[in-house]
């Protein structure tokens, strides 16, 4: 394992430590979404997935 991998691992551990309290706070404070809200999130997400699949197929052809 080279020093770049060790440095990357250290950076990720620091990120996890930094994010953890923010994640807990966000989980407590975020309003609960209704099924309609989640549907409005799933529509663009499915479109993004379809677009990425299209890009992969385009690059492969």
């Amino acid at each position: 394992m080279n020093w770049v991998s060790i440095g990357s691992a250290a950076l990720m551990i620091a990120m996890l430590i930094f994010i953890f309290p923010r994640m807990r706070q966000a989980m407590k404070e975020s309003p609960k979404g209704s099924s309609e809200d989640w549907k409005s999130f799933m529509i663009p997400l499915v479109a993004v997935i379809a677009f990425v699949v299209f890009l992969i197929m385009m690059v492969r052809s």
Partner: protein
Amino acid sequence: MLENQSVASRPVESVLSTNKVIRSTYQLLSMTLVFSGVMAYLSIAMQASHGMGLVATIAGIVMLWFVLPRTANSAAGIPVIFAITGLLGFGIGPMVAHYLAINPSIVMTALGGTGVIFLGLSGYAMTTRKDFSFMGGFLMVGMFVIIGASLLNIFLGIPALSLTVSAGVIMIMSGFILYETSSIIHGGETNYIMATASLFLSILNLFSALLHLLGALGDD
């Protein structure tokens, strides 16, 4: 009568203020993206090593965590955001150089794809004006899991896990673009420097994950 005028003018002021934040955010975002691109080009031209890229990325993240929150409410926030985006752009240079050496069209496709996804999601959030604040907890948990999986894969080196992480990053960053854009529209984010930093990070992560995915799956 005066009371009525005051009540009626409040939403107008709020809309004007929101429009100003949106305009300032997109202006600053476009400038920082161009600057970041110039720094990435410089990194490629200098043939910067992955180690140099990592050092620049760490410097950018340290500034993002500790310097930007203290300067975002003042004029000092502008040079700080340029320094952060420049360092992160320089940091991504060695990875872009790697894929340019393999197949330059992959880099162009990832760049165009990132632009289309960002504009599409921003357009969706702006036209529907839906409030995506409910996604905050979900996105933070998703990001925590993705970083944990990336960390694990440094030691395990499983290609399938690496691809799964990239696919996950694309979905989480797409969610962050919707969340942040909706937050600006609904007045949750009133600081255009912080909004720019958040959108810039989403775009950068989206681009690097898409580049990785296209680089890995684009070849038979």
